[in-house]
């Protein structure tokens, strides 16, 4: 059912299980207890960075299906994406898993883009079980968007660190697991920023727009949630988003956090914080799902933020268009 301009409401969709596989740096962070698989080696035992990212994805898919008590034959659809050109991590993983596949790209908003689509297809009856998720890897992202990983360039303090990891969930009708309640689809917002190192500033207005739209469409307010997280605004975008929301009359001070800030300790040399598809996916499907299952949190709004630039677009001097999608995940009230 649709509310307002762009919010979908679901009644029977649950996240049946989720799994997260991460690299070494993420495994040393404050959320290490919440990740299912932690690798000590950034190559994940593979011989290329691309294969390493794919391996994380495959492991997360396998484990999520297993935790749901299903086999891959019972899964009707996989909706997934990643940051690499032609989303190869997602499609090669789908090839490995042999599940009917729809690939999506929303940069780092892919986690909630894919979850929204999965929930709507389950709600509408087009699928019983959908696997959804995304991956990113620090080295593949550096290689594609910036410089070779061993290049000795100096990054500014507002740069971010791409999370190496994959977060996957199994969505379906069922009896246990938190419900996917609302999904608010964001529009592309471009405030004219051009610095590809400063994604936080570029993405904050998109997150703010989607959050405000969500409140407008659902009639909810920040305090209706136990926790609202943005995907990867990190140290620069987070205070900006907070300030902009305050200006619009939404006081976020007690409930708001950012996955990019939750991912690492302050002394892990990650500049302003984490970024990448796996930032929101690992925090949501690892940490937040655990908290929901333990009833420490009951209502969470995840706002995954994505910068829709490409290396070509910024070299041609284009500004950075950004997007955010919000999904509310909630325990049923007793």
């Amino acid at each position, binding site marked *: 059912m649709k509310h307002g301009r762009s919010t979908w409401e679901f009644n029977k969709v649950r996240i049946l299980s989720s799994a997260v596989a991460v690299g070494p740096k993420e495994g040393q962070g404050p959320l290490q207890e919440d990740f299912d698989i932690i690798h000590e080696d950034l190559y994940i035992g593979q*011989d*290329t*960075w*691309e294969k390493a990212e794919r391996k994380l994805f495959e492991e997360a898919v396998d484990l999520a299906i297993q935790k749901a008590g299903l086999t891959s034959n019972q899964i009707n659809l996989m909706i997934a994406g990643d940051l690499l050109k032609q989303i190869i991590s997602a499609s090669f993983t789908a090839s490995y898993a042999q599940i009917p596949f729809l690939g999506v790209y929303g940069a780092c908003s892919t986690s909630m883009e894919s979850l929204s689509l999965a929930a709507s297809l389950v709600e509408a009856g087009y699928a019983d079980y959908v696997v959804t998720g995304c991956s990113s890897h620090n080295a593949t992202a550096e*290689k594609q968007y910036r*410089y*070779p*990983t*061993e*290049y*000795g*360039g*100096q*990054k*500014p*303090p*507002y740069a971010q660190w791409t999370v190496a990891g994959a977060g996957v969930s199994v969505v379906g009708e069922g009896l246990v697991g938190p419900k996917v309640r609302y999904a608010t689809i964001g529009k592309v917002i471009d*405030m*004219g*920023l051009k610095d590809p190192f*400063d994604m*936080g*500033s570029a993405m904050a*207005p998109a997150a703010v727009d989607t959050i405000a739209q969500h409140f407008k469409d659902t009639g909810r307010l920040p305090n209706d949630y136990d926790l609202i997280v943005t995907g990867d605004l990190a*140290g*620069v975008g987070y*205070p*900006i988003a907070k*300030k902009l929301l305050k200006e619009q009359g939404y006081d976020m001070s007690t409930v708001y956090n950012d996955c990019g800030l939750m991912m690492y300790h302050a002394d892990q040399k990650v500049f*302003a914080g984490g970024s990448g598809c796996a930032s929101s996916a690992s925090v949501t499907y690892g940490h937040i799902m655990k908290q929901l299952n333990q009833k420490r949190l009951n209502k969470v709004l995840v706002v995954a933020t994505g910068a829709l630039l490409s290396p070509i677009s910024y070299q041609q001097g284009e500004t950075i268009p950004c997007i955010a999608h919000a999904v509310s995940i909630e325990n049923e009230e007793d």
Partner: protein
Amino acid sequence: MKQSTGKKRMDNEKKRKYQQMTMKMRPNPPIISNSIKAFLVGGAISLLGQGIQNIYINYFDFSKEQAGNPTVATLIFISALLTGLGVYDKIGQFAGAGSAVPVTGFANSIASAALEHRSEGIVLGVGGNMFKLAGSVIVFGVVAAFFIALIKTLISLI
């Protein structure tokens, strides 16, 4: 001249204000401490180069002019080795221009690109991408050298 509409002007005004706000809110690179680090590391690399050159002159009977080439080759070797060991990018983050400007930075840009694209094959991967970063240095270096040589020759003719 095309007149911008009222809405567009308001949009631009909003964007400009936002951009100014982000510039104020984000942490900017510490220029003074970065410059000091660059000066110290750049100086240390140059000192190392001088030391190597002195060794070639004193122990291997090179003349001062002849010692230049093996000195540069040695620095390039050290830089490529440190790149392969995963150390040079850390030096680069600390030193900035200090490790980018000397010949070691040039070697790092080539070695890192070669390493990165090794997985795409020797010809298209390593060969095709090695000069991805260094290529423009070579192009503009050669062009600049050509014009300087031209000017020098013309002046000597007068």
